[in-house]
Every structure is written in C-alpha cells, then in structure tokens.
C-alpha cells in the first residue's frame, strides 16, 4: 500500500488537505487485497460499493465535512452484521445470510465516515485460536508462509498487518483479538466487557464477548475506541460510564506508573525467547520511571478449565437459535469445533451436571476476578505475555483440541474478569511476531493506551 506510511490521523489530515483522494486510497487497498489473495484474509470483498463510498467521501470532504474516519478504509470481521452485505461467521450454516440491519459498532464506524472494504475471515463462529477452523479455508500469517496468523479474528489482523486497510474490527471472547494481534505484529484492543455494544455481533459466549479492533499504532486504537465505545440501548450490558478523551493520555508520561508482573504468567510453559523480550520492554519502561512489582494471581491455573466450561455452555445456548428456519441452513452444517462446543456445553448444563460444572465454574470466576481486584490495589496495570508460544505451522494442532485450548492460557483471564487488555507488538523471533499484553482495571483503557504508547516508543 502506497499509503501505509500514514497513520489514520495523518491520512485524515492529508485527505482534508486534498493531497490525494479517498478513492485512490481505497483503490490502492483493494489492489493490496487482490495481490495478497493467497493469505485468504477476506471472505467477502465489497469492491464496487467501497469505491462508490470513497467517491461520496471525497465529495463530502470537498464540501468541508470533517469526521474522524471520513474516507478511511477499514475491514469488518465476518461476525459483525452488515446490512445488505453477506455475513457468514465463517460458517457454511450462514453461507447465504444477508443481514437486515447492521451492528451498532458498524453503524458508528460508518457514521464516523469509515469505508468498509469487506468482511474478514475468522474461525467459524469465532471458535478457535489459529484461524484454521474457517469453513472458507485457513488464513495465513503474512510474516512466514504456512504459519497461522492466530485466531479467531485471523483475517482482521492480517488485513491490517498486510496493509490492506487501516483498521479492522474483531471479537475477543478468550483472546481472539489479542492473540492474532500478537501473531501478526499489530495492536489489538479487547475493551472492558460492555464498553462497546455487542448488538448485531453474532454471539459466541454472551458473558465474555468483547467487541474490539486492530490497528497498526496505539493512537489509532484509541481513536477507534473513542468512536465505538458507549452506551447502547440495544445492549443492556453497556453501562452509563462516560467515554473518556483517550487522546489526553498520550500527553502524560509514565513516570511513577506501577506495573505488575504476575509470577504465574512467567513460569514454566512460557517460551524463553518471549519471556526475554517482555523483560527487555519492562526494563525500558522502568528506565522511563515506571515502578515494577512482581505480583501473584493465584487462581490462574484454574482459568482454562473454568473458561472451557462457561464458554461452551454459553455457546451451546447461543447456537441453539440456528434452526435453519428463519435464516441459514440446517444444523448438520456446523463444523467440528462448533459441534464439539455444542455437545460439551449442553453436557455441562444438563440435569445432574449443572452444579458440578457450570455453577462451580461461575464460582471460580469470582475468585479469578478477586485476584485481579487485589492486584490492582497494588499496581496500575499488569504486563503479561499473550501467547505461551510463537505462531505454529498450519495443521500442527488441528486434531488436538485441548492443545489448541491451552494456547489461550494468558488471555482468557481478562475475559473472565471482564477487564480490558491491549496487545502491543514487541518485535520478532525467528521471523515471527511476538506481542505483549497490558491489562488494567475495568474501564482503564486510557491508561492501557498510555503504557502501550510508551512500549511502542521503546523501538526494541
């Protein structure tokens, strides 16, 4: 992309000054999508509509309109309903589904002037950590051929990493934004539960689903959140909590900020090379005045077990609506992972097992949340790895669901506790990207951006 040197903010400035048109930017992105078809990042590309919208945007710009994303091309994960544009959830069950309305987040982005280039590939129903579970074929990592880009928001991360667009939306139920962000060298935000409306986003596990996005830079991530966040009468979990002016955090330095490193996240199981990279970043932050403290989140070891009870339980309930009558096709068209989760979820909720599994998991969830509450009395943010390993080869874990589930060990806790997490790139190991996550208390996204920006500036 010729325009890949621009941040969204810079692109907007140049569009405003008419250095070039939105149409040329959009066409350039569409070319990039076409040239990188082998990565399989998109399920649907809206070429004609996007060019039309770009022309409209150019007209509006000429007339003096000024919107934060006017003329900026973005992509949308195929879990978000887009009125009139096919939405599949990467499952053949919804192969011909054309939504009658758009998700609130999509509406807000469009109202801010963004231009939708298309719908990105992902693990079907957002079930997966690698992007391989898509009924439309796996997405590839743009950094190394035959490697996974991370999932479930695989195509979204790749579309931003490979300069096909300036931002993309994702969903994060157990790491589905942070993991692909870390595997593809981009910035991924999982906001606080309820910060962004879930309305019109195909539900996976309703008590865990977070609606976030990918960008190349931290300041862009803050800009997108300032547009998508806020109360929505169509989603009862969006609170009245004010949306902060996130840009104000970039004026603050990080001197005196207390950073916790949970010892449970840096013990056995974590690739040494990832650990070293994170420690280097932490030393840099310390050199800029941050205070580092080793903390403990004692219930970490139960997180995956807790998550893989609550998650399938809610999945089985949410996928019950796909009866092939009102939309979509018959239930035998679900892929293996959806079928596994439906069975597991139905089982843990079934009579005689509910107390032993689901109820117990909901209690453990309380303990995991309390771990974070205690930690945030001592520190402002927590720094942790995103994935215990580097991206793996396509096919490597395909027949071992448990091995795949264990990849989420460092990410599911934020969903269980409802807290926000920002994954920021910290360099490459053997040609493969590594990310690090910054976690904070509920609604502390501004603080995460502040620290994320400092990490970006480390240049390590």
């Amino acid at each position, binding site marked *: 992309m010729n325009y890949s040197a621009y941040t969204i903010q810079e692109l907007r400035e140049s569009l405003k000054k008419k250095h070039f048109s939105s149409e040329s930017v959009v066409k350039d992105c569409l070319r990039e999508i076409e040239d990188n078809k082998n990565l399989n990042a998109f399920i649907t590309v809206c070429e004609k509509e996007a060019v039309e919208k770009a022309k409209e945007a150019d007209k509006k710009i000429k007339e003096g309109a000024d919107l934060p994303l006017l003329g900026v091309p973005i992509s949308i994960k195929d879990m978000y309903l887009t009125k009139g544009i096919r939405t599949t959830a990467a499952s053949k069950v919804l192969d011909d589904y054309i939504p009658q309305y758009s998700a609130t987040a999509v509406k807000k982005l469009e109202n801010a002037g963004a231009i939708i280039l298309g719908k990105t590939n992902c693990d079907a129903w957002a079930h997966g950590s690698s992007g391989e579970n898509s009924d439309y074929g796996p997405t590839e990592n743009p950094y190394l051929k035959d490697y996974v880009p991370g999932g479930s928001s695989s195509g979204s991360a790749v579309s931003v990493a490979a300069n096909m667009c300036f931002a993309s939306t994702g969903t994060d139920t157990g790491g589905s934004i942070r993991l692909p962000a870390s595997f593809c060298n981009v910035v991924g935000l999982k906001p606080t539960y309820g910060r962004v409306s879930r309305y019109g986003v195909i539900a996976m596990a309703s008590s865990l689903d977070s609606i976030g996005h990918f960008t190349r830079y931290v300041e862009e991530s803050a800009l997108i959140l300032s547009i998508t966040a806020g109360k929505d009468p169509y989603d009862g979990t969006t609170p009245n909590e004010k949306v902060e002016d996130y840009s104000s955090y970039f004026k603050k330095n990080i001197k005196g900020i207390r950073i916790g490193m949970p010892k449970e996240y840096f013990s056995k199981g974590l690739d040494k090379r990832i650990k070293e990279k994170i420690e280097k970043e932490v030393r840099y932050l310390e050199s800029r005045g941050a205070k580092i403290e080793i903390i403990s989140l004692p219930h970490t070891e139960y997180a995956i*077990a807790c998550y*893989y009870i609550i998650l399938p339980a809610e999945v089985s309930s949410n996928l019950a609506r796909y009866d092939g009558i009102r939309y*979509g096709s018959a239930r035998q068209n679900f892929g293996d992972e959806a079928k*596994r989760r*439906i069975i*597991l979820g139905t089982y843990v909720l079934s009579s005689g097992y509910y107390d032993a599994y689901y109820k117990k998991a909901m209690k453990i969830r309380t303990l995991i*949340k309390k771990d974070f509450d205690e930690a945030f009395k001592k520190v402002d943010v927590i720094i942790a790895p995103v994935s215990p390993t580097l991206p793996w080869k396509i096919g490597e874990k395909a027949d071992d669901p448990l091995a795949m589930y264990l990849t989420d060990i460092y990410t599911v806790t934020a969903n269980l506790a409802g807290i926000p997490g920002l994954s920021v790139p910290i360099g490459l190991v053997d040609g493969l990207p590594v990310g690090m996550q910054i976690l904070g208390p509920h609604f502390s996204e501004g603080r995460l951006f502040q620290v994320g920006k400092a990490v970006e500036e480390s240049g390590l």
Partner: protein
Amino acid sequence: MKIDVKHVAKLANLPLSGDEEEKFERQLASIIEYVEKLNETDVGNVEETSQITGLENVTREDHPKPSLSQDEALSNAKSKHNGLFKVKKVL
C-alpha cells in the same frame, strides 16, 4: 469420565454421524478430564459471578418501537407461505 455423546447430541438437536459420535467422545473425554481440575479448589461459600461489571436489572420502557417489516423479517427464510415462516409439522 465419558460424555454420552449420542444422548447429549439429541438434547442439543444436533444430528451426528456414527463416526462423529466416536470422534467427539474421544476428543471430549480429554477435555472433561482436564476441566475436572476445578475439583481441586474449595469454593464453598464463594458467590457465582454472572454479570462481571456489576450491572443489575437493566430495563427499558415497554413501548413499541420501529422494527423489521414482515418482508424484511422473512428475507432470509428458505421456506415461507403467505408472509409466514413455513415449518414442518410439529405435532
């Protein structure tokens, strides 16, 4: 611990082939074994968490609002009749 996949699939209205039943039974056994880990902790008096940011009883005024038209609502249905969804006989 094994899941009776055949029975559970029936509860979930999920048609499976014999091969699938066998495969899922094997794969899910290792997952069930793993989640049994939770039994190590004592959760006696701990309260369950379902709404993580602490919201309670969020309601709205019970007034009708604009919604999808009948045609729009039916636009994705494979089988319809006289402006209604057509389904197989239930009783």
